């Protein structure tokens, strides 16, 4: 693939009651255009990743909504929805639009505004990603992943303390990320003592409800835009973009110890990029709950099944002590926040910074190949992107 990320920017994630979605989108877009050093009229199409604007905010038609807001009126624009994978699905659509030859420069906006609404309203809205049967049962998202955790614990002896170690690591990484929702380090004891949400998952096993936006500018043109301020030494390319799906609900799955969609998307992405799990230096994976990072690092092939939890506890994926690769240097969904439509785009913004060597205190040394993994629902959609810096 001949596709480069030429600009990227993310807003701070968190409770942002003082700003509207328009302001969040404007900030992320202005930052990305400035990073790219291009005139925004060079952008031919806008892809918006969002899940909840219709059900919570009663605003649909986000393609036109944000093209007007970002002064791109007249350009092609649409919204892409795939629950918590909406952001990376929008990137996937943008990549395919570039590969088709129709456009040469496009923008992807991932955005979500969640904290304006009551938690039970948000919980009910997020269950739009599940199926009717799960909604009727009064299931919640923490509940779905708790049910997966229960099977993983029984099958592989995974413990609640091991899951807590994922939250501890990701809060540590988030403490180094100025855009993260949380900057406080936490301990395994704090996670274990936090309020139970859905057994065995506790409050600090769960990613938070967040506001945020992230923007990527993608181009088929490798030539550096003329007139940019800084000289760029590293070009970041997207070398794989793959999607796979599975049953909407847990009752349709053959196995509950893995997400089959993740395995399928990863297999296709490794083949497309011509790399394997051992080549990945840094990964942003979908840790909506601590158990999700354990399952993801196994399903992506970084660890054998049942082996990820103990490796995470030993610091094998932590900045500074990592053996093979660093997982979730941004803090992940757990520490950096999870504005659902923005997350998949933010993951790629983080990896772009890592590959360019501009990630500051959370820089992974000698990062050359990076992987982003974004999940919709309880594993019904999985999206894997692989990036290369050169």
């Amino acid at each position: 693939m001949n596709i480069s990320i030429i600009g990227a920017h993310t807003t701070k994630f968190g409770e942002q009651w003082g700003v509207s979605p328009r302001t969040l989108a404007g900030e992320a877009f202005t930052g990305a255009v400035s990073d790219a050093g291009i005139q925004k009229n060079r952008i031919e199409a806008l892809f918006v990743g969002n899940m909840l604007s219709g059900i919570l905010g009663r605003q649909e038609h986000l393609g036109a909504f944000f093209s007007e807001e970002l002064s791109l009126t007249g350009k092609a624009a649409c919204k892409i929805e795939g629950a918590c994978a909406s952001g990376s699905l929008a990137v996937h659509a943008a990549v395919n639009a570039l590969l088709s030859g129709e456009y040469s420069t496009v923008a992807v906006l991932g955005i979500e505004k969640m904290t304006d609404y009551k938690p039970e309203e948000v919980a009910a809205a997020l269950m739009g990603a599940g199926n009717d049967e799960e909604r009727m049962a009064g299931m919640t998202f923490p509940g779905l992943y708790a049910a997966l955790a229960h099977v993983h614990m029984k099958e592989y002896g995974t413990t609640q303390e091991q899951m807590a170690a994922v939250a501890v690591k990701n809060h540590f990484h988030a403490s180094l990320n100025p855009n993260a929702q949380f900057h406080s380090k936490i301990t395994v004891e704090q996670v274990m003592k936090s309020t139970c949400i859905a057994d065995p998952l506790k409050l600090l096993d769960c990613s938070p409800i967040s506001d945020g936006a992230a923007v990527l500018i993608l181009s088929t043109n490798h030539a550096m835009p003329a007139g940019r301020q800084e000289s760029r030494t590293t070009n970041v390319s997207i070398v794989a973009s793959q999607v796979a799906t599975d049953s909407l609900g847990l009752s349709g799955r053959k196995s509950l110890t893995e997400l089959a969609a993740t395995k399928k998307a990863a297999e296709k992405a490794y083949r497309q990029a011509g790399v394997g799990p051992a080549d990945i230096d840094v990964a942003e994976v979908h840790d909506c709950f601590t158990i999700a990072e354990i399952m993801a690092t196994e399903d992506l092939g970084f660890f054998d099944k049942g082996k990820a939890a103990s490796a995470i506890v030993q610091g094998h994926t932590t900045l500074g002590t990592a053996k093979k690769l660093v997982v979730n240097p941004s803090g992940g969904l757990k520490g950096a926040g999870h504005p659902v439509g923005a997350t998949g785009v933010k993951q790629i913004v983080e990896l772009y910074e890592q590959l360019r060597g501009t990630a500051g205190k959370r820089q992974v040394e000698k990062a050359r190949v990076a992987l982003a993994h974004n999940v919709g629902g309880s594993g019904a959609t999985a999206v894997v992107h692989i990036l290369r810096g050169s």
Partner: protein
Amino acid sequence: MNSPVKHWRNQKKITELVGKTGKIVTFTIIRVPPAGYSDQAPYAVAVIDFGATDRVSCQIVDCELTDISIGMTVRLTVRRVKTPGIDDVIPYGIKARPIHSL
């Protein structure tokens, strides 16, 4: 599920499921419920396997939450599923009872 026509369509599915016996594959206890379920919390939700047919996700009722375990045998029954709005049809659906409590 406020529309009567949705209730009517859903009842066909309930008829197919009620009385079936299966085993709990996994479960959780929901302590922070979504809107409409707060009067029931905490409650257990499980994935139930019927062997030959598809699995189903539903609540486990008529037992202590601490007595629920993976592998437990349960039978599907009809129950009110959530608190209806003031003018709504009462929503009925499937829940499961441990066999020993029948």
